[in-house]
């Protein structure tokens, strides 16, 4: 679905930004409309995804994981095999192409764990843009390897010391920097969040996941999946895979949020499961907040899911009942991470391990006629130092 003229999916989305950014958002919206209607734009995007990213990513039926509890086929969409090891690059390739088309001179990006920062640094190098990445000072410390990779690729990493020194503050800072240099700068947002047209645009750059997976399921199995599962931080890998199936009423859509220590504790990052409607980073959606409307500190073992908000289209899918959102705790995700690695020979990203953990629970209720599709949004190399230290 396309958001309405004001950028709303139902009651969610819109533009809650300082006036100084409106002209840039309108300029971007116009450029998106023109580019999306231009077959040559998409041809170049898909050519780069093929040659540079390694798409299409395969689907792969698990051979052992969850087979002890279920006879339902469990199929993975292998975004972990992309260049840079996650789905994030589908989006940064698209946005870099747009930035070039619009004549912008440099890219800025926010990053939490560093995955989106790395994917932005990669396209900056490839297309010849200077890249400035804003990253919470705490995350700079926790994700030292990704900081080094970004620098190796020629990007400048700016530690953000305000607020909680994590992704939410990095995003605030990227918005501020954008406001100061709005005419020549393209802000590459890393998920389906932000002010209109970002949530829509990023989804369209990630829908390649769902479009490919739908065709691959039909070709391999002659049927659509019964269930599609993806982890939800900001929600881009989930919106990307959901986009392929949202118009197929028989396909159940499951978004898996980071439960952290559990939804009943303050240490969680499940915006849809434990949050309420509010405004953060330019759009109206669900978020974790206090009664006074202050954004709450969040926690997840997975840095990529450790975000107090969620994309507005997920809020819409939740309230309309089209998708269901469930939490997986740190402990459950970690258990699935280990189990999956030993059963399948694939080390998943900690984010993706949340989806994998839920898939096992769901599989127990499904049979051989069902088909469960899980978005394996990334590989776990980035998480190994953290897990090893546990």
């Amino acid at each position, binding site marked *: 679905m396309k958001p309405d003229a004001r950028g709303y999916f139902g009651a969610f989305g819109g533009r809650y930004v*300082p006036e100084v950014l409106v*002209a840039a958002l309108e300029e971007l919206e116009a450029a998106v409309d023109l580019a999306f209607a231009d077959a040559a734009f998409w041809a170049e995007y898909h050519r780069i995804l093929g040659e540079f990213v390694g798409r299409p990513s395969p689907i792969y039926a698990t051979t052992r994981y969850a087979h002890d509890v279920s006879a339902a086929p469990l199929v993975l969409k292998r975004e972990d095999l992309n260049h840079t090891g996650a789905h994030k690059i589908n989006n940064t390739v698209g946005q870099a192409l747009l930035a070039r088309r619009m004549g912008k001179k440099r890219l800025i990006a926010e990053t939490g764990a560093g995955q989106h920062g790395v994917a932005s640094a990669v396209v900056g190098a490839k297309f010849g843009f200077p890249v400035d990445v804003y990253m919470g000072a705490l995350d700079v410390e926790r994700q030292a390897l990704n900081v080094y990779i970004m620098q190796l690729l020629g990007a400048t990493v700016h530690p953000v010391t305000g607020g909680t020194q994590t992704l939410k503050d990095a995003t605030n800072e990227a*918005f501020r920097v954008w406001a100061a240099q709005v005419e020549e700068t393209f802000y590459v947002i890393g998920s389906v969040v932000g002010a209109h047209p970002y949530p829509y645009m990023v989804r369209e750059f990630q829908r390649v996941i769902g479009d490919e997976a739908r065709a691959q399921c039909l070709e391999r199995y002659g049927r659509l999946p019964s269930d599609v599962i993806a982890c939800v931080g900001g929600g881009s890998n989930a919106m990307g895979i959901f986009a392929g199936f949202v118009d197929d009423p028989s396909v159940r859509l499951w978004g898996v949020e980071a439960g952290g220590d559990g939804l009943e504790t303050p240490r969680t990052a499940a915006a849809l499961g434990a949050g309420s409607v509010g405004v953060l*980073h330019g759009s109206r959606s669900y978020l974790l907040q206090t009664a006074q409307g202050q*954004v709450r500190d969040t926690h997840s073992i997975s840095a990529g899911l450790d975000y107090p908000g969620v994309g507005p289209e997920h809020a819409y899918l939740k309230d309309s009942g089209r998708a269901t959102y469930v939490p997986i705790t740190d402990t459950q995700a970690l258990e699935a991470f280990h189990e999956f690695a030993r059963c399948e020979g694939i080390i998943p990203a900690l984010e993706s391990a949340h989806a994998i953990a839920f898939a096992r629970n769901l599989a127990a209720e499904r049979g051989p006629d069902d088909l469960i599709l899980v978005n394996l949004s990334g590989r776990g190399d980035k998480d190994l130092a953290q897990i090893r230290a546990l």
Partner: protein
Amino acid sequence: MRLTELFAELRREKRPAFIPYLMAGDPTADATVAMLVMLRTVGADIVEVGIPYGDPLADGPTIAAAGQRALAHGGGVAQTLDIIAKASPASPPIVVFSYFNPLLQYGFERFAREAKRAGAVGVIVPDVILEEAHSLQSALAAEGLDMPLLVAPTTAKARAARICAQATGFVYVVSRLGVTGAGSTPDFTPLHDQISRLREVTTMPLAVGFGVSNVGHVKDVAAHADGIIVGSALIDAYAKSAPEDAVAAVQAFVTPLIAASRA
């Protein structure tokens, strides 16, 4: 008094409004009350009172840090309303400055009612643009509260005309790209062109903010605008002193600026 009447009076006196900005609860709630009262005695015309917020997208480090300090000791919508209620009988007219989300959670009608009762005259919301202003603005209007809207250097003329037509009280003219902060030396030449262009589309009072921080800036802006807003520099002026010295520090800082605005 409604803001438009106040600006009309100042127009007759041929001087702009001097509008300092304070963060409610920084360094303490009592200090904010005392600053508000002091500001009337030294001749400030209007005061903006900020509701502290942890994710202030339109603010630079000075105001963001002041907000963090206020939040750390119980700041927020309720405390701000309390401060305003205590100070407003003896302060200049108060315009609340708040990000959107705290007001959304408080409830627009409830906030409008309580802000009115506390003695505020208007509300500025830096992350609400023309297209999103309606529901809050009508709740405020129902209580007789004004809602000035912002125009930026990037705002096209036709859009600026629509913003000015919908704003009530005055129009907040953002002097430059970026966020609040006293850091760099602003070049106000483009601002003068911006104001001339706005004058072609509106008769609303135009108050200028972002980066105005010393006597020279005030004189420069006073020559063209109907109001001068000073925020970050004022907070910088007391941030390093002990809380009990903050009121005196603000007084020493604003007195020459007010004189400059009337020169």
